[in-house]
């Protein structure tokens, strides 16, 4: 009896790990499909990279993504106002990134508004996500 229980537990643990891994891969694809349905695409990491370094003057100061997140996505960033450390965005350096759809959307919305003074277009968001995922 005991070995079969043990086997069942192991199987459940494996299942949990696999579904977590699958869930971790899905959010960006889901979002890209969503952006495509809004008329955007195809997406390119090169366009995302260009967008990343684009300087925009908003609220009287030059702002860009890299200001807080750094140009090196594997590096720890620094909040432009508070100086708080921002964990690396590159999934290779920080596996927690791009695993939570709600979180991705929230921060894209909040940070686009801060940087550009407007929401990003589906095309811009798709390009940036593809770029981040490639790092």
């Amino acid at each position, binding site marked *: 009896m005991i070995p079969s229980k043990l086997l069942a537990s192991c199987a459940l643990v494996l299942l949990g790990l696999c579904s977590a891994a699958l869930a971790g891969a899905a959010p960006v694809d889901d979002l890209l499909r969503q952006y495509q349905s809004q008329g955007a695409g195809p997406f390119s990491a090169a366009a995302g990279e260009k967008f990343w370094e684009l300087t925009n003057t908003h609220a009287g100061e030059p702002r860009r993504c890299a200001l807080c997140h750094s140009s090196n996505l594997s590096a720890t960033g620094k909040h432009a*106002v508070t100086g708080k450390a921002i964990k690396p965005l590159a999934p290779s350096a920080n596996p927690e990134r791009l695993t939570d759809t709600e979180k991705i959307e929230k921060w894209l919305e909040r940070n686009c508004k801060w940087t550009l003074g407007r929401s990003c277009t589906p095309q811009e968001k798709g390009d940036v996500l593809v770029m981040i995922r490639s790092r």
Partner: protein
Amino acid sequence: MVRVWDLPTRLFHWALALAFAGEWLTRDASRLDVHEFLGYAIGGLILFRLAWGFVGTRWARFASFPLSASAAWYYVRGMLARRPEHHVGHNPAGSWAIYLLLTLAALQVVTGIVALGAEQRLGPLAAMPTFELGDAAHTAHLVLAYAMLAVVVVHVAGVVVGSLLERQNLVRSMLTGAKHASGTDGVEARRGVAGVMIALLAVSTFAWFAAGRADARAQRAIAALSLPLDPVWQSECSGCHIAYHPSLLPARSWRRTFAVQHDHFGEDLDLPAAKSRQLEGYAMRNAADALQSPVAWKIAHSVPASAAPLRVSETPYWRERHERVDPAVFKRVHASDCGACHRDADNASFSALAIHVAGGASAPRKGK
């Protein structure tokens, strides 16, 4: 020259003087551990002196220097007329300094222990939960410190003037014990008692500053002061700054924070309605007004009812507590980064024992 001051009396005098100086140097919260130890040492010294006033040698006994306003006034007038009366033991003005300093020092020990217990969860009254009494004791502690300093200044001035007029070095007398007097006025040295005093001071110093003791004590104090933080609040509010515990601002400040969330220091939080309500409710229930911690009590009582500051650093209590911090520290560290100096910022405990000023400056003092 004859020995007038026995050794324990002299030891008491200089130990108290040194401890008092030490208390001034360690008055910043970041040095509370040493400040507290010196306070207990002063308490012990006072107890010794009270006993020695009855069982000590002739000139150390209270009976030899009664408190008399008329005698002190007569003595001071004599000094002003440049013909001071000679006293073998304490003169009537010096007696006043002694009784005043003993009383003030005793009050400092008491108010210090009350404030320490209520505000820092440290010391014999660590279980005392009345922040109100702690606040009153802390205020009294600050006022009495200046009163004591004033008495010390007058005492030192009196000793200097008295030494010049009497043509004998009274400071040296308090070191060597010897004064001009007749042979029959002499007293024993009482080295044995002095030896016990030194041993007790050495042992207590060693025990207090033993390796690891301060850390273990800080951990206990932080645990006693800690407030839990809601995990949703923690994850939603820690993106750009530490997740400030709601107890750091009054409820009206949190209401305003949520009302202006579309311009939250230049960011649009744009929280989903349900989450916004949930977080606002949590903040309102746990705001400073709920008085869950000594810091919450201080903040709640420092912010005028008409004000609803959006930043913790705009509250009068925060400003008062940080006005002596070297401005250079805030050039290196943003005021939102509490954890840069307060190692327990995430627990909202803000224990004095958890302060280490960012950048290595040990004392948060101006112009240093």
